[in-house]
């Protein structure tokens, strides 16, 4: 099976999982206590208005009918209509998703750029002081709540030192007219980066730590391989041994961890967006739950699940691409 066919096959395999996510979110959100109609119309609505609203959102139909029409809608790209914001759910998601993507991708960028060198050095200098330090950093990193790191960063860099703004995040290509105090696009880019730094570090620390751990153990294994010994025996210098021979085969477990970490990071974004008051997907989901806006709860949960699946598929494909032994799912 070729790489393209493998890709298509993996995408098809994701469909039942997507339907499963929709099913779980549908039945969970329809079990939410409280009535969205009463939230919209206040405590004493007229019976006529209640009927009108229920008909509008299809709440007068039986549960299974609503479920199948929801599935049919999603298949056609319609995630429903937000009760609270009175716009299509998809519109709201498209508005909020880019900031979350910006935050999550930057967090992974930060994590990879720090974790890979740290893990490799740690493996190379095993049981030396630098290895102990990096292992302690990684241990603390996987054990610290990300939102607490966020709070500490705000206390130090915003409140004590006054260096970075504590809240809000926008994209570097935002319109300067919408950004206070920005005259040119360059100002927007700088301001956007300043606002990105703290949430990026807070969200990326856990990923950094878990990638460092796996990079280290994978490199330790890799450096014990026969072909590495052979390369050394042939007089390849240490730098060449590490980067040319040992590094690449050691990256497969790292890729797996990055793929799995995407799920943690998307969940972590809920916390980090709350701490830094960032209007992304994570905050949207909390707001949707607090407003009992269940079409929006379903839509955002589904979207986060779908994003994770895309990440997993990319992971699998890059795995197949890097490791020629992966037989593209053939048994």
């Amino acid at each position, binding site marked *: 099976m070729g790489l393209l066919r493998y890709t298509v096959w993996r995408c098809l395999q994701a469909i*039942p999982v997507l339907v*499963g*996510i929709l099913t779980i*979110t549908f039945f*969970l959100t329809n079990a939410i206590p409280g009535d969205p109609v009463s939230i919209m119309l206040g405590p004493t609505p007229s019976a006529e208005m209640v009927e009108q609203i229920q008909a509008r959102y299809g709440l007068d139909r039986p549960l299974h009918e609503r479920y199948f029409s929801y599935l049919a809608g999603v298949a056609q790209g319609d995630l429903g209509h937000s009760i609270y914001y009175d716009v299509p759910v998809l519109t709201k998601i498209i508005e909020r998703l880019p900031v979350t993507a910006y935050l999550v991708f930057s967090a992974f960028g930060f994590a990879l750029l720090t974790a890979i060198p740290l893990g490799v050095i740690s493996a190379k200098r095993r049981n030396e002081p630098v290895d102990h330090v990096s292992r302690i950093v990684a241990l603390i990193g996987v054990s610290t*709540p990300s939102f607490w790191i966020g*709070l500490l960063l705000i206390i130090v860099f915003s409140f004590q030192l006054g260096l970075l703004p504590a809240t809000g995040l926008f994209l570097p290509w935002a319109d300067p007219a919408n950004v206070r105090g920005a005259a040119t696009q360059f100002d927007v880019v700088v301001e956007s980066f300043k606002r990105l730094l703290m949430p990026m570090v807070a969200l990326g620390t856990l990923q950094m730590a878990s990638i460092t751990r796996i990079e280290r153990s994978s490199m330790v294994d890799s450096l014990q391989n026969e072909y590495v010994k052979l390369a050394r025996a042939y007089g390849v210098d240490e730098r060449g041994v590490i980067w040319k021979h040992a590094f690449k085969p050691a990256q497969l477990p790292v890729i797996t961890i990055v793929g799995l970490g995407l799920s943690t990071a998307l969940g972590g974004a*809920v916390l980090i967006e709350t701490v830094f008051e960032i209007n992304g997907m994570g905050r949207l989901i909390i707001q949707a*739950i607090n407003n009992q806006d269940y079409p929006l709860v379903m839509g955002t949960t589904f979207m986060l699940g779908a994003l994770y699946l895309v990440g997993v598929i990319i992971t699998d494909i890059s795995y197949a691409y890097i490791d020629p032994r992966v037989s593209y799912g053939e048994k």
Partner: protein
Amino acid sequence: MMAVHETQGEEEFADEPTEGGVDEVEARVGLAYTLKQVKRDSTARMGFYIIAFITAIAAFVSIDYYLLDYAMAKAIPFLHHPERDPEVINTLLPPVGMENGLGSGTWEHPLGTDHRGRDILTRLIYGTRIAMTVGFMATAIGLVGGTLVGAVSGYYGGWVDDVLQRITDTIYAIPFLVLVIAFMSAFGRDISYAMVGVGIASIPVFNRLIRSRVVSIREEEYIEAAKAAGVKDRNIILRHVIPNSFAPVLVQATLQVGVSILIVAGLSFLGFGAQPPTPSWGQMLAASRNYMLPAPTFSIWPGIAILVTVVAFNLLGDGLQDALDPRINN
């Protein structure tokens, strides 16, 4: 019938493998063997002691909460009532030896006071109850659920396996925290729902582990022998398959308690965990968010409590992993 006898012998042996003449490889699944290995590993030992200490505090605090109506908290000199606002209200005091705009720290409140004038140290100590209860219980739910699903799935294979694995894949695909929040918004913002929600969300973790073990064990000769001897499937799973997966599950469960504590802290921070005035670390951090400028130390203590607890579980988990890994042992 021989196979059945051997089975029972092995199951007992999983708990008390101290009998002589035991094969070295089989001994690796035993609890006593594990404890012996942990004792030899200094980091695992440290993790174990910290966990034992915090668990003891949590037990003490739980007795005081459930049975004594905080009588102990009132009786012990350095503790205060963990929930009620004090009569003399000194809000947001700094720790002893420090000063902030609202006053200077005293030995009365070694770590300072919160926004309602309650003693932070007392609330940290009483916060162990929520953290440890939820950490252990959620892991237990995930462990039991995941073990059952994984064992059945791996042992039977075929369509049972397909259906169960697609369901757990689905649960796994929704980000952990988001799934638990959705679950809690459906059932209620009570800490017991947080516990169940985190437990259900961690079923896929144990499922994967057990399933892969079961698939490899299924082909072993002694399972074939047990089958040939007419032992029921249920007994084969309970007496052979599950005890033989003991080591990796123990490691994963230890790490998972730490993960659960982190998740529950996050839930409480978002307002989905323990509700005020019940002391919980995540909720203390949520409250401290509004006072980061006048009382920055308020935000520090609950985070340290979470960090130390989770580090302890990670130390023990890593130590166990090393202790039970045959490659490192030999």
